[in-house]
């Protein structure tokens, strides 16, 4: 089962010290996947953070590490979220088998099609709207989610400026879920913020 509400970490918004607690609060509110994405953090420190987050959220919630599969394997994560500049999904699948959950970040339809062919379990597609996390870039819009969803059979997780109020339209466009950074990390009340997203998502569950 692919998680539907993903929280992605960012130490510029939420410090590494606070992350385990904030992640747990978000899980209580309904987040079912945590991505540790801390670019530029040395691998040794990243491993410590991943383990702390795992300890905090427990074993039932999906935990993914951005880019570093080695840290994911050692840190007790379920898998890796591969950026477009990352290891090819095909090599990860070929070398590490079906136990590793592989998410792939994509920014166009071709990338999503390739990700599916290479064995990714899901794609994170975006960014949909203009967002504070990717300043200066225009959003690709809801039609982008529609195009990607129509082109692949694996779940599409929409990312980029998604608020609870916008969940409905990205889900209606074919997304299977949403990924959130500042919408939860900047809220000051991560549990409540996560719950708002979860309630919006639940309108689409059967």
């Amino acid at each position: 089962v692919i998680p539907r509400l993903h929280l992605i970490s960012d130490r510029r918004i939420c410090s590494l010290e606070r992350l385990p607690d904030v992640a747990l609060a978000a899980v209580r509110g309904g987040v079912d996947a945590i991505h540790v994405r801390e670019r530029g953090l040395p691998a040794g420190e990243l491993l410590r953070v991943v383990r702390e987050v795992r300890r905090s959220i427990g074993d039932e919630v999906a935990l993914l590490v951005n880019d570093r599969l080695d840290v994911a394997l050692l840190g007790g994560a379920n898998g890796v979220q591969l950026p477009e500049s990352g290891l090819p999904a095909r090599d990860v699948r070929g070398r590490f088998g079906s136990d590793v959950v592989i998410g792939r970040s994509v920014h166009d339809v071709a990338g999503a099609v390739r990700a599916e062919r290479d064995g990714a379990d899901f794609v994170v597609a975006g960014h949909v709207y203009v967002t504070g996390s990717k300043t200066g870039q225009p959003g690709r819009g809801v039609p982008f989610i529609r195009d990607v969803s129509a082109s692949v059979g694996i779940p599409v997780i929409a990312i980029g400026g998604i608020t609870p109020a916008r969940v409905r339209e990205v889900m209606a466009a074919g997304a299977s879920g949403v990924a959130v950074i500042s919408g939860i990390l900047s809220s000051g009340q991560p549990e409540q913020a996560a719950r708002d997203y979860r309630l919006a998502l639940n309108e689409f569950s059967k």
Partner: protein
Amino acid sequence: MVDRRSTIASHLRDALRVYVLTDRSVSRSRAETDVVREAIAGGATAIQLRWKDGPLWEAVEIGRRLRDICDGENVLFVVNDRVDLALALDADGVHVGEDDLPVREVRKLVGSRMIVGYSPPTLVEAVQAERAGADYLGVGPVFGTSTKADAGRAVGTDRIRDVAASVRIPVVGIGGIGSENAGAVIAAGAAGVAVISAVVAQDDIAAASRTLRQAVDAALDEASGTT
């Protein structure tokens, strides 16, 4: 699973004589494959893929070619920092530093499939790394260097001597080493020298590699003759 670690261990000292690290910013945009072929033609015994910038998928493509070249020439092929990349490439080894994944963690991932190298910042950490399962140590910077801006102050050949006397695994010197001072590093107890600019920045990479290899071999002959 292949126990490449034991196979390599039997000849690791020899394989570490001249250890050439790739670095795009230093090799003046010459293709890694050409740089490595030339370095090996001159006598390099080990190659390390250092991938600091650029997409990982490209590192996989290039790394695969480097591994094939090294396999064909019986040269050790090591990947810097990224254990996942090393595993994906089925490299002979992976090399980690102070801020990278700890040696004992790396060992958990690679088992006996490959060797693990480590750059200890202190003598204490050198001894700990051996206990944690490191197969060799890269010690330096022995002399001043401009290639690795974060390398810190030169530790001199005294550090080579101290580390080599404190561990059983082979030690390679790194940092500011060229054919003119390689002999002193070997005389201090190193099994070999690791270089970047002294080989990959040169106009004639094969010639630079050959000169360095000759200096190392001569010093090793002398060291074994006198002990």
